[in-house]
């Protein structure tokens, strides 16, 4: 959970960066798109059974990591994006503890013999 909170802070930082370092319009827009998406994913992934959403932030992190080379950004923008990307990927890889049980989670819906079906069958005896 703390890893997702750090990711929320990274997203907020990316959203504030254009105002702090007065980026140009295109670079600002890039940050105004990426920042809210990171925050949204991190908030959804705060809950244990939706922790899997953190993988979307790994994807966004991967884009952010290569974005200076694709978009031709240099200097402070490239430094901010690459540093944020590395931290975002790192903290998105942390699953954190899962304490509750959710009948096998979302993947159970695609399993042949999910844990909720087994336990329901057990109760009927």
């Amino acid at each position, binding site marked *: 959970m703390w890893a997702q909170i750090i990711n929320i802070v990274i997203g907020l930082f990316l959203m504030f960066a254009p105002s702090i370092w007065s980026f140009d319009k295109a670079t600002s827009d890039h940050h*105004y798109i990426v920042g809210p998406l990171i925050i949204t994913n991190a908030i959804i992934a*705060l809950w244990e059974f939706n922790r899997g959403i953190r993988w979307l932030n790994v994807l966004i992190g991967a884009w952010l990591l290569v974005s200076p080379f694709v978009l031709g950004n240099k200097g402070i923008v490239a430094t901010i994006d690459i540093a944020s990307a590395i931290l975002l990927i790192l903290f998105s890889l942390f699953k954190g503890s899962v304490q509750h049980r959710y*009948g*096998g989670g979302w993947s159970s819906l695609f399993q042949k013999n999910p*844990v909720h079906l087994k336990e329901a069958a057990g109760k009927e005896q």
Partner: protein
Amino acid sequence: MNLSQMDKKEQIPPAWDYNPSSWGQRMPLIVIAIIGFFIALYMGLFQLEVLDSVWDPFFGDGSRKILTSSVSEALPVPDAILGAFGYLVDAVTGVIGGVHRWKKMPWIVVVFGVAIGPLGMISILLVILQPVLIGAWCTLCLVTAVLSVVMISPAVDEMLASLQYLQRVKRSGHSVWKAFWGKDNIHLLVK
């Protein structure tokens, strides 16, 4: 185990350790939806020109710029009024049904989850469009966006429990359609 304890255990879906349809789980969502409804209604009343000004402690003229922008007025109805309607649907579908609703009324649980998902998506889209297209920020718009995103996960856990129940109904050979609408007391036959 006494009767009330047995009843409590009966409410918890198999292989779960809490009941996602309990009032303790649903009440915070209903409260957030009602708060969101009033904030959106306030902004909508400004858009309908019932109110002369709109409150914004951080971005000055930002809220007014955004709420009167072409994006906000792209539809026949102001976007905040649609938002208010969305929150109202969230609150009403959050209230309907008892603590067994994940298996007695899967349809309402699914409507609840589906109503909250898109509302969150649209909020985020608007948060992105504000600075990119209009070049402004709006405090209350950001607040409602955060509210709708925070609602997503705690609302869809109930939907997961309902979908797992329907999966068990399908395996048992009963009608998933009837179970979805809570007919024929299938919930008494399938755990």
